[in-house]
């Protein structure tokens, strides 16, 4: 036996303590379940926020306490117990798995179909990565290019600290704290999200994607996005990922606010593929999102979304066309399969003169799912010569699913021109047989028909995103026709 000195003992205790301390530190970074003022304060404190932000959160929390969960959507689910959720969990720095072999093979098969690279697969599933140099360097050069143009693109937590004047000026101006139940909840407890500012007259030279954002891990279930396009600027922003997102958090309540100042244009594209639950309808994410944009004079906002995931979706990306000659667009594909339920659409609020809006909604229902389009076109008394064109098409697969359309129109100005078209069709056995006879098997035939049906919207997506979205549609509907 070698001698064991006091010094050795001290040394060992030191390292042990460090290890232990480090570990407990992480463990204690998840808050106890439940929601009260103290929790809201604690979240703000954890994030090192200034007092105005803490107060803003507290105001939201007060409002939320007085509100009740809305029930008007055409969806059925067990309401979440808001006191049974933990509202803060620090980003987990520990890898979930040591190698890809430990990851659910079904998930990996899906990745392969989507053509996602091995490195990306590791990143998405939370496997420890040896080679991070690539993505870091990409992100760094990316940041440099943006910085040269004066574009700010960072997490909202960072923005609150680094650019408080911008956040303070705009946050909650488009979606106020008390806007609705989930927006109020989000305002009180939002964990993180993205912030983007494009200076006057700047055309953002690349598609901004959350994928490239440094420090993106663990944005959590209450995401908050604020995007400001200053006068005469342009930005195309991509949100989400076609890769399936499995998340233990059942409830997701995000808020997105867009501000397009005079002559600015924002193109906001989303691909949402949250876990939809299994084929029996167990599990799956509840996605209650508030997305709204404001257009000043001559400004334009386009929302394009491909929604394939989530067990329950409740989402209405909207445009407030405040400035004269402003333009709002909404292009949407919503796919529901198995027991999924989606109630999605848009609101176009015409306030300014000569404002124009276009709505193209494509709903695809399969299995036992329910797919609803809900849209409001509102023309205020001062909105002379406002125009809207809406087209809502539904495609049904099988006999057990449902498609519903709830268009609301409020026109308070006689000069308004509003057009609404709606169709419902079913993938027919005749169409399938026709494809079969040309050598195309049933699975591929459905993909072809669905892609044809969705073409008007897919065309609005940035090129690479469109290709991925197309593959995603195929995968989402796999096995939906027996």
């Amino acid at each position, binding site marked *: 036996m070698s001698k064991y000195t006091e010094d050795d003992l001290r040394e060992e205790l030191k390292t042990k303590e460090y290890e232990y301390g480090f570990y407990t530190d992480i463990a204690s970074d998840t808050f106890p379940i439940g929601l009260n003022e103290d929790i809201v304060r604690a979240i703000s404190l954890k994030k090192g926020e200034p007092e105005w932000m803490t107060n803003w959160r507290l105001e939201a929390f007060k409002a939320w306490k007085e509100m009740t969960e809305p029930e008007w959507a055409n969806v059925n689910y067990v309401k979440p117990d808001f006191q049974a959720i933990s509202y803060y969990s620090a980003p987990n720095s520990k890898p979930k798995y040591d190698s890809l072999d430990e990851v659910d093979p079904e998930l990996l098969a899906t990745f392969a179909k989507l053509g996602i690279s091995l490195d990306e697969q590791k990143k998405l599933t939370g496997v420890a990565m040896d080679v991070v140099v690539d993505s870091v360097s990409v992100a760094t050069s990316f940041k440099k290019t943006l910085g040269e143009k004066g574009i700010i693109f960072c997490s909202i937590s960072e923005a609150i600290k680094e650019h408080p004047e911008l956040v303070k000026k705009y946050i909650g101006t488009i979606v106020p704290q008390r806007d609705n139940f989930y927006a109020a909840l989000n305002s009180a407890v939002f964990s993180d999200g993205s912030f983007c500012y494009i200076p006057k007259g700047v055309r953002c030279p690349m598609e901004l994607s959350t994928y490239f954002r440094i420090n993106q891990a663990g944005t959590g279930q209450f995401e908050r996005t604020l995007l400001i396009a200053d006068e005469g600027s342009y930005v195309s922003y991509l949100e989400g990922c076609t890769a399936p997102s499995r998340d233990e958090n059942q409830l997701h309540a995000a808020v997105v606010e867009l501000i397009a100042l005079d002559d600015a244009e924002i193109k906001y594209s989303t691909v949402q593929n949250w876990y939809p639950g299994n084929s029996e309808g167990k599990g799956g994410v509840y996605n209650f999102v508030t997305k709204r944009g404001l257009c000043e004079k001559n400004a334009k906002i386009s929302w394009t979304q491909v929604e394939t995931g989530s067990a329950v979706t409740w989402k209405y990306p909207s445009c407030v066309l405040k400035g004269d000659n402003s333009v709002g667009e909404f292009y949407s594909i919503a796919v529901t399969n198995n027991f999924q339920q989606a109630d999605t659409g848009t609101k176009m609020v015409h306030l300014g003169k000569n404002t124009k809006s276009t709505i193209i909604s494509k709903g695809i229902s399969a299995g036992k799912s329910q797919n609803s389009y809900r849209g409001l076109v509102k023309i205020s008394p001062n909105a002379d010569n406002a125009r809207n064109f809406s087209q809502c098409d539904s495609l049904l697969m099988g006999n057990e699913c449902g498609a519903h359309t709830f268009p609301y129109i409020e026109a308070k100005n006689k000069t308004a021109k509003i057009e609404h078209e709606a169709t419902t069709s079913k993938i*027919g*056995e*005749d*169409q399938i*047989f*026709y*494809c*079969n*006879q*040309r*050598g*195309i*098997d*049933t699975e*591929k035939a459905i993909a*072809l*028909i669905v*892609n*044809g*049906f*969705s*073409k*008007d919207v897919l065309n609005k997506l940035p090129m690479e995103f469109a290709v991925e979205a197309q593959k995603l549609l195929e995968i989402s509907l796999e096995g939906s026709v027996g």
Partner: protein
Amino acid sequence: MLKIENLHASVEDKGILKGINLEIKAGEVHAIMGPNGSGKSTLASVIAGKEEYEVTKGNIVFNGEDIEDLAAEERAHKGIFLSFQYPVEIPGVSVTNFMKTAINETRKAKGLEDMPAKDMLKLIREKSELLEIDRKFLSRSLNEGFSGGEKKRNEIFQMAMLEPQLAILDETDSGLDIDALRIVANGVNKLKSKDNAVLVITHYQRLLDYIVPDFVHVLYNGRIVKSGGKELAHELEEKGYDWIKEEVNA
């Protein structure tokens, strides 16, 4: 090439084909005629493999292989083509995209790579010239808003692209005026060779003035009750189908 033996088929338990025997060799043109409801279109669908039809007895042998258990797409891969009486619309899918998918799926089934885009373009150019089809037409959504004549020409264009061994033309003449009929028939004639075969299904003789058959068969009540040369078609045109019915029922 195709040999049908004692074929019985039914849909929803109702017997429609009641013992068909037919042999078609490479290089031949056969016509199947018959009154409405005699089972002509059913025969076309059964050969092509439409699922709703159940083969209850007999065999369909294509190039020496029993095919009645194969899926419709597998039969297509082996070279069976059906020109539909009522081609369906597929909105948002262009004729070109549809053909590209069909050709590449067939190639995939044979273990081949996708056809290179350059070759695909060349093939499309070649075949659309052969059939005098305006190429603007090929970017339109499949059959959506097509006139009757356009739909049938599109069917023949697809046949040209897929180069089947056996082409079944199901009532290709229905809904066509005489000019459109001539164009479609010319297309078929240009595609005919000693290696392929055509089965024309028609109610009227007029198509057979343009696509001249080697054999004419009369289908009545689920059976081929009379076979002959092209002159049989003329006889039917003159006398109608009643004398056949009487002969059978006698």
